[in-house]
């Protein structure tokens, strides 16, 4: 069993608490001094930075919501001057407005170390070729694992996503040892390997690090079989850092949270009260080790549970379960965040009525998105060609807003079931 940073990963609770307390004091002070929104939030609660002495005082602090990032778009929550930033990432948000995050050099180093710990947790070492098939760009997936591999001293292969034949060719020719991508793409690569008649045991790849979307144990078994590898889950979100906030070790029994940098809490999403270990609730993170965006008690809206029991692997870092849905309506489709409200605003802009339904499914191991929308007389016309043009126009607008392809289907008026309460907009068949 090996570790990237044994002093932290196997530290005693006392040592960890000491680090967490010191870092919490630091970020509360820096946020109070540099970020107007945090000064306002703390002042409203009558809390001064001096009131925060140990990590246990964290419960006195206010929550941060995704809306706070939107309200201060793009850089309003930064706790450092602009010239100290070395990197920007962003994730899609509702109504087309992105959530922008930024990093100092130290933040990149922290994140890279966390991703390096994840690769080692999955049995990787500096001798490995790390094949990164996450998308590179504003999305944190590609660059996150890429820098993690380099930080470890391994060899990053920045393939990015897409072109499955080339992915397999590179795996064969270069001898990729570890594959990193979304689990649905891993399934698809596995299937393509089989279709090509390639025996997966002839591929050198022995482990996969998969995340950015929820997946099940059944998918894990299928991926492990189709690629003859061990498949590890990794968790992250751009607001906190990116992939590597938490990840599985070889025990595959929960994801170790890098809690020296990202302090986790589980709360009741309705009351905000903290919940004990083992109970499911909303995951909340405080970025105690970050400079540019040291968010305090950020509500991830992901539902999971945490345990502090020592793992068989020797690590003492707390472990989170797989996420079990969300407290909001965000969908994760092919690793991309999609809000029904984004789809709604596209439809309204094109003169459609807000009577629509979103069908998410998984076909040939790839997530599919279908948007069904009721036709109205404003857009109805007499020829098939012009109706198909309407469908294509909506599909193109959705693609440009969501960055993923959607199939559009026109329905008759009143064919979508009307609800008395909250409309049932989303049918996610992946979960069934």
């Amino acid at each position, binding site marked *: 069993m090996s570790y990237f940073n044994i002093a932290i990963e196997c530290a005693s609770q006392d040592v960890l608490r000491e680090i967490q307390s010191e870092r919490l004091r630091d970020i509360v002070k820096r946020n109070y001094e540099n970020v107007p929104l945090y000064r306002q939030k703390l002042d409203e609660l009558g809390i001064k930075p001096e009131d925060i002495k140990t990590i246990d005082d964290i419960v006195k602090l206010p929550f941060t919501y995704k809306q706070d990032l939107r309200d201060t778009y793009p850089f309003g929550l930064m706790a450092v001057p602009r010239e100290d930033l070395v990197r920007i990432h962003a994730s899609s948000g509702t109504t087309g407005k992105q959530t922008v995050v930024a990093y100092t050099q130290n933040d990149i180093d922290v994140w890279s170390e966390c991703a390096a710990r994840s690769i080692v947790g999955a049995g990787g070492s500096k001798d490995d070729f790390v094949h990164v098939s996450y998308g590179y760009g504003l999305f944190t997936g590609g660059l996150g694992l890429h820098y993690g591999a380099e930080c470890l001293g391994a060899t990053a292969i920045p393939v990015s996503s897409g072109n499955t034949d080339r992915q397999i060719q590179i795996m064969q020719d270069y001898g990729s040892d570890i594959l990193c991508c979304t689990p649905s793409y891993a399934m698809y690569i596995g299937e393509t390997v089989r279709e090509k008649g390639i025996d997966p045991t002839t591929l050198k790849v022995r482990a996969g690090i998969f995340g950015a979307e929820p997946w099940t144990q059944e998918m894990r078994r299928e991926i492990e079989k189709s690629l003859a590898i061990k498949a590890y889950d990794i968790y992250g979100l751009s607001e906190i850092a990116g992939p590597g906030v938490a990840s599985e070790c070889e025990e595959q029994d929960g994801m170790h949270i890098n809690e020296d940098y990202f302090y986790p809490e589980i709360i009741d999403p309705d009351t905000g009260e903290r919940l004990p270990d083992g109970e499911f609730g909303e995951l909340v993170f405080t970025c105690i080790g970050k400079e540019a965006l040291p968010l305090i008690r950020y509500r991830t809206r992901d539902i999971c549970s945490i345990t502090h029991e020592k793992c068989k692997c020797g690590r003492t870092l707390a472990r989170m379960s797989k996420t079990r849905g969300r407290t909001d309506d965000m969908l994760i489709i092919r690793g991309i965040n999609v809000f029904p409200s984004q789809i709604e605003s596209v439809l309204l802009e094109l003169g459609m009525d807000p009577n629509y339904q979103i069908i998410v499914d998984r076909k040939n191991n790839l997530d599919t998105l279908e948007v069904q929308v009721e036709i109205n007389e404003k857009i109805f016309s*007499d*020829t098939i060609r012009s109706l198909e043009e309407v469908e294509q126009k909506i599909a193109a607008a959705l693609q440009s807003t969501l960055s993923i392809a959607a199939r559009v289907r026109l329905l008759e008026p009143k064919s979508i079931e009307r609800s008395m309460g909250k409309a049932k907009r989303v049918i996610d068949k992946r979960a069934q």
Partner: protein
Amino acid sequence: MQLKQLSIFVENKAGRLAEITEALAKANVDIRAISVADTSDFGILRVIVDKPNEAVTALRENGFTVSLTDVIAVGIDDKPGAFAYAVRTLADNSIAIEYMYAFISRDKGKAYIIIRADDGEAAIKALESGGSAILNPQEIYDM
């Protein structure tokens, strides 16, 4: 003069055609000609009726998406070559047909074609100068 055709959006699911025609029956609307264009998801039902405005009202009341479209009714002899002659006239005048359908008259020896052309007025002119008989809308409604 062009006549009014009903165009109705129909989702491809069992029973829809029955519901549309039942709504027309209840409004005492008589169907003269009918045609369907379809894709895998939806279709457009095109109907010529005796009372187009009443039919539209009845269908809208029943929640259907319906519009009125101008089409041309051409009367031809029911014999080999008559149809070819009519569409050749349009082709020679560079008039495109968006869609068409045909039905045979109760009067022996006559057939009718319903044509939706990209330029309806030009199509009428071309057909008339080629010697085809353009029907007055009322003739079809009262048929």
